[in-house]
């Protein structure tokens, strides 16, 4: 990833760096109303996850407490608290995709990645996420690689996509 900070293969950033990055992300918010939620989103946009340091910085930034910030952060499934892999694959399992074979796609991706659930591969480089709907039902089944949609996917084409990502490492 271009910013290099979430790459597990690189030296992982120090606590001070994470704190600095979080603080900058928080200060970069331009909207008139800054909330806990907007602050967490700003951090996740930049760091792709919410480290402990960001919870603490957010609490200071919005004059709240770490517990109240955590309360919001833990409510939304979309926030993650560990660094993601270099690339993220979202697999849709909404009704349309499900009816059009998403389960087979999912099974294939699992076996290609060597995992059985959502999450990171053993080497931490690729992240798999289940999505309740990617909003492209006409193209079902759908997956997204780093937010780029790929429609009418089959188990084989999904395997090819995963293969490419692995080769690119």
């Amino acid at each position, binding site marked *: 990833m271009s910013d290099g900070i979430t790459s597990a293969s690189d030296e992982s950033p120090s*606590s001070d760096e994470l704190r600095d990055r979080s603080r900058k992300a928080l200060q970069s918010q331009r909207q008139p109303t800054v909330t806990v939620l907007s602050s967490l989103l700003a951090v996740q946009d930049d760091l792709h996850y919410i480290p402990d340091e960001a919870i603490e910085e957010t*609490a*200071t930034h919005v004059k*709240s*407490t770490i*517990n*109240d*910030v*955590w309360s919001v952060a833990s409510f939304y499934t979309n926030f993650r608290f560990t660094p993601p892999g270099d690339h993220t694959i979202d697999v849709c399992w909404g009704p349309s995709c499900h009816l059009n074979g998403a389960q087979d796609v999912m099974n294939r991706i699992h076996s290609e990645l060597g995992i059985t659930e959502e999450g990171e591969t053993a080497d931490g480089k690729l992240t798999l996420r289940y999505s309740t709907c990617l909003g492209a039902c006409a193209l079902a089944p759908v997956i997204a690689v780093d937010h780029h949609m790929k429609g009418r996917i089959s188990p084989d084409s999904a395997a090819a996509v995963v293969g490419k990502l692995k080769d690119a490492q």
Partner: protein
Amino acid sequence: MADDTIKLTVDGQEIEAKPGQTIIQAAQDADIYIPYLCYFPGMKPYGACRMCVVSTEAGGRKGVQASCTTPVMADMIVETSSEEVVELRRGITDLLMSEHPHGCLTCHRAELCGPQDICQRHVAVTDRCTICPKNERCELKDTVRFMKLDLTSSLDYHRRDLPIHTDDPFYDRDYNLCIVCVRCVRACDEVRGDSALSMVSRSGVALVGTSHGTSLLESGCEFCGACIDACPTGALVERDYKWEKASTKVKTVCTNCPVGCEFVMDINDINKVVRMTGDLSGEASHGQACFKGKFGYDYPNHVRRLKYPMVRVDGELQRTTWEVALEAASQGLLQHLPEERGVILSPRGTNEDHYVGQKFARTVLGTNNVDTGLNRSAELLAALAAAPGHGAATNPIWGIENSKCVLVVAGNPTEEQNVLAVPVKKAVRAGANLIVIDPRETELTRYATNWLRPRPGTEITLLGGLARVILDEALEDKDFVRDRLDGVDEFKKAIWSFDLMRVSQITGVSEDEIRSAARAYGNGSPASLLHGTDGIVAGDHADLLAAVMNLALMTGNIGCAGGGVYPLYSGANTQGGNDVGAAPNLLPGYRSVSSNSDRDVISSSVGGTYPQRPGKSVRDMVAGDGIKALIVLADGWNPDVAGMTTNGLVNPGFMVVSDAFMSDTASRADVVFPAATYAEVSGTITNLERRVQKVNPGLELRHEEREGWRTLADLANVMGGSGFGYETSSEVFEEIRKVVPDYAGLTHARIEGRGIQSPARDETSNGTGILFSSEERLSVVPMAIREPVSLPNREYPFTLGHGRVLLRPEEDVQVVRDERSMNYIERDTLIEIHPEDAADLDVSEGDRVAINAQQDSSASPLPDFGYVRLSSPHRGFVSVTTLFAEVVTGIQDSGDIDISPSVKGLPLRHVSLAKAPILREAGMAAD
């Protein structure tokens, strides 16, 4: 007025309610029970559990509503137990039971089995009713039993299988028993303003927790126990005496600080005090508490209590009888001249103790050397008695809630008078401005809209600067100044010398900050003002008080609701001691010892001869100033922590000590009397808002312990004193009424339960909430700008402000969890240093410096090292901020039996700094 009530019908009964009440409140007022779990008095309606559903019909609309969130409406018809709502409640209860062990709730044998019986229904041992710490005192059980569930249901449920948190100080948290009523979170957030607990996650797995599930030590907990008191199940409980049941409950008052929080004391069947629960009906505390009162209560139970009198024989203290000990004390005291004798009374002592103490000192020992142990500043007392005419807070504690602005000077109420900070935080939440004048960072600075950090010792000049801005910008209360104040012209003339530029130079606070704070205070009427004496040298206390009073008077904040001045002093009953004359210069009722007519009033009323020469304060007596024989009532008094000695009280020649334990002071005495503690005495104490409250005995005296007043009266009788034939403390109080006009309308019976604020001059009076609310005239006094005095100290060139907060998110804190011990905190301390000082020390941002402090046994320990931050506002001033959690773990490690007198303060310190090598990578745990 008829317009102020709303009539509605509940279960066919017509009841009256106040507008804005919810249905459940109106029903409770009319003694109609509606089952509930998440509703809690004093908290906002929440509607989490839906247990309180009722069917309603109003304005032609029918429905089922949660009665805790639905306001009453005129002509509403409410059914609390129609078939529909009962069915709904059963469904809700079933859902609750699906995640809560309920052998204790729904088993038909629950009332029949004893704790040792074999469970007839083979419930897993971890789920049994007797395992739950709230067994037999569980609110959930009462509610569920009301539902009349099928008591032969199977007892299975889904267990969350969460680990139990047992490694934080004082608390155990078992979220397997949590029913997610959110009372604890609301107590922490809404009531206390701390948010050390929050709701975590969502939907079916949502539970109470902390950020990342951390220990309470790093979540910002102040260990007040409000969450425990609110918890309806066994999820949150006090660890000590966890499974103990109360056989009697006694209403009493905490004697650890001058707030005087009302508590319900649980006594078990073997005469031990096992629990303290904040009394929701308490007028002084509104059911709130702090760690000292909530968890520091059990020293009366301790096996090391002194049981018998002792006298020193051949250098050793040996057990003896009261007769022998009293005789020995009498003989020893008589060997010294009257002016060489002194009496130091316990800060926890009752008004009765204090009154008998001063009477004994004056009429039997013939000296005015009598004082209460924590009356740290006789000058402050004298100034208080002279200037506002009364030495206490002018307004009630919870009046602060209605302030539009709160100014806190040189005090740290969150630690020293904890519950006083609760209404401050509430006012801030409601939109009030909070101005904190303190070089240290305290818990309140987190909430402050203006935090002014003057150079230590320049607070008075800064207050003068505020007054100057208020006059310059015409923010004073002109009507009040014209109608009520004297000395205004002289005051204005004097304040003219407070040139703002000069004030700013002296204090190190920018002109803009001074102006902004002055505007906040001047425009924020009504405004309350809390002033301590932390960091102010004793000689300046009177000037500080004058500055504070001037500010409050000029802005008309005296005599009005939500305004007022609150002196922050130490000692639970320092106020009562002053009221009843346990002070070296004051007779009962604030009469002067040097006035012949005042002395005559007292002696003609209660007999005895009263000496004329003013006595010595506790500080002087401790310093040994001409004193050769001392009587010390030492319960709850530690002269080291009070900053009066560094190595304990020296026996000046002959010393008699009454104490609950063989304390350092007692061990040096010639005669030791065993003292009764707060849990065993009957009497009154007076809190900082002048509320005279009843302390009630819950424990029976087990051995030969005696109350303070009885000990002194017995001694007086042996020494030939007259007028000491008291049988009970209420007899003593009857005598106090005669000589203290402010107490004339009070009796033990009248103040039982809720207390009455003095002055209450006759028996029809319900006390005086707000002083100076009538039209009496008051004066402002001229004040002068003061150039800062700096005393160069070669060895320790820096003044260090030691702050303390609940939470510092920007610092790395690590809680160390060790399976064998309790959680404790390790962290890097930041030390704020002025950039120029840092240059002199050859250190820069992030460097590590060694902190070497002058020895001070009254001060909280300082870290040995700190990491430099170049943010100190003043040259020569450095500051560190430690965490409240460190105090709490420190208490736990110290093993002190009686914790309150050993909690050390945060005085300014003199330190030297030296550059130190960084031993480890920054971010690692500190040294």
